[in-house]
């Protein structure tokens, strides 16, 4: 914990509030993600986890509060700067969100069309696509359509696409939801190896206790739109608070 605190924060959320009509989803949520850290956010369905992540990448505008990525406030940022900053963030969507009219190759080439200049030592589009697919073990699927892939394979291709611009931060929105335990475990191991290989900071939203145990350095429980509890997996799973413990019951 202390070693994490010594590291530089790459992402900071302060007092984020977001409502949809009378539905107050986030009521002052705070978060700090440090360099190289795996931070897991857990919460019940509908507790606002996905809304929070969408606020971070600028897909949803929060009502108030500040979001700083690498010391830049994204709320006051112009569209061009935001588009450029987004290349620093990889996002793995809950349903993979692969472009279904494109092949795996075209899916991976898509983010490179505009932002390949941003990659250090860029070796060419083909080499980048091969490297990203190799890191998720799916080089063979390069010319297949997303519909021809299994759920686990789609999730891996989506991860390769999230990695293609070599982002510093990766957001995982329910990375293991809808997968069988074996495939889910493969995805978790893949997330660990990617974190080592690319030295990324990760923000992981999950319900999966196994995933949280294996991957988290730190956890935040999001309840009723606020940080209900915060700590390591061991601290939270052994908490005396019944509501906190309820998250860890299988």
């Amino acid at each position, binding site marked *: 914990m202390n070693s994490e605190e010594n590291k530089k924060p790459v992402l900071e959320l302060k007092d984020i509030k977001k409502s949809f009509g009378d539905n107050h989803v986030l009521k002052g949520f705070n978060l700090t993600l440090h360099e190289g850290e795996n931070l897991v956010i857990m919460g019940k369905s509908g507790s606002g986890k996905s809304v929070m992540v969408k606020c971070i990448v*600028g897909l949803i505008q929060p009502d108030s509060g500040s979001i700083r990525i690498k010391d830049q406030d994204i709320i006051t940022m112009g569209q061009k700067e935001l*588009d450029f900053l*987004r290349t620093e963030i990889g996002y793995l969507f809950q349903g993979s969100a692969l472009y279904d*009219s494109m092949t795996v190759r075209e899916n991976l080439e898509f983010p490179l069309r505009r932002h390949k200049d941003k990659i250090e030592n860029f070796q060419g589009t083909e080499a980048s696509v091969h490297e990203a697919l190799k890191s998720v073990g799916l080089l063979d699927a390069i010319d297949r359509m997303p519909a021809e892939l299994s759920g686990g394979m789609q999730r891996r291709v989506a991860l390769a696409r999230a990695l293609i611009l070599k982002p510093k931060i990766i957001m995982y929105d329910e990375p293991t939801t809808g997968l069988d335990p074996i495939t889910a475990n493969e995805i978790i191991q893949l997330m660990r190896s990617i974190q080592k290989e690319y030295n990324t900071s990760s923000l992981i939203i999950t319900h999966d206790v196994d995933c949280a145990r294996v991957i988290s350095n730190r956890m935040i429980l999001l309840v009723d739109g606020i940080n209900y509890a915060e700590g390591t997996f061991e601290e939270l799973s052994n908490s005396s608070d019944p509501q906190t413990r309820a998250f860890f019951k299988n």
Partner: protein
Amino acid sequence: MSKPNSFLDRIKSFFAEIGDMAFFAGRFFRELFSKPFEFRELLRQCYNMGNRSLFLVIVTGFILGLVFTLQSRPTLTQFGAESWMPSMISLSIVREIGPVIIALICAGRIGSGIGAEIGSMRVTEQIDAMEVSGTNPFKYLVVTRILAVTLMLPLLVILGDAVALVGSAIVENLKGGVSYTLYFNQVFDALKFSDVFPATVKTFFFGFAIGLVGTYKGYNCAKGTVGVGEASNSAVVYTSMLLFIIDFIAVFVTDIFYTL
């Protein structure tokens, strides 16, 4: 909610949607002239829309010419006016029936396709994924598609008109023994610039309407598969209505212009 309220709400939401669509159209023109331009996607869409509608337009155009001539022939024969057939058919097809029928066919084929495609991309978060990867989805998906239909529809209408005249010529040749040379000589004698030009110009507006409504409905699609179905369906309904309104305005303006 009581019935009068729900009726009022419907009217309110209808006008709200019209306003929203006007903003959507405004954004299209803003993004159309700002960099970066998505030329590759525009060409791909032009090819898709043009090529995939080709067969439908040819079949529809041919049957249109065939049936229209078969139906009109007995009436004109009664008055001994068969010789007016090529002029009458060509003017009707080029000025009115061809553009409207082909545009309606394309509203069903292209408009609903755009609505369903963009709608399902919205529902499956593909549009969000595009935005997160630093690409402007409005420019990539909406601007290219509206522009592609606007450019392709006039070509499809010209093709449809030509095929309809071929269909009509075949009937005239078989039923009336009119040679193809004589038929097309009469067709080109009857058609003037003032017939062809306004009819072609209005097809650009038809194309714009098909693209605008299809992309608007898809882009603002509600979550879930029902939303995709509704986006696709309402794209066709709204566009068909809009096509007749545009047609009325176009005919009205042309009439004023040529009587001046």
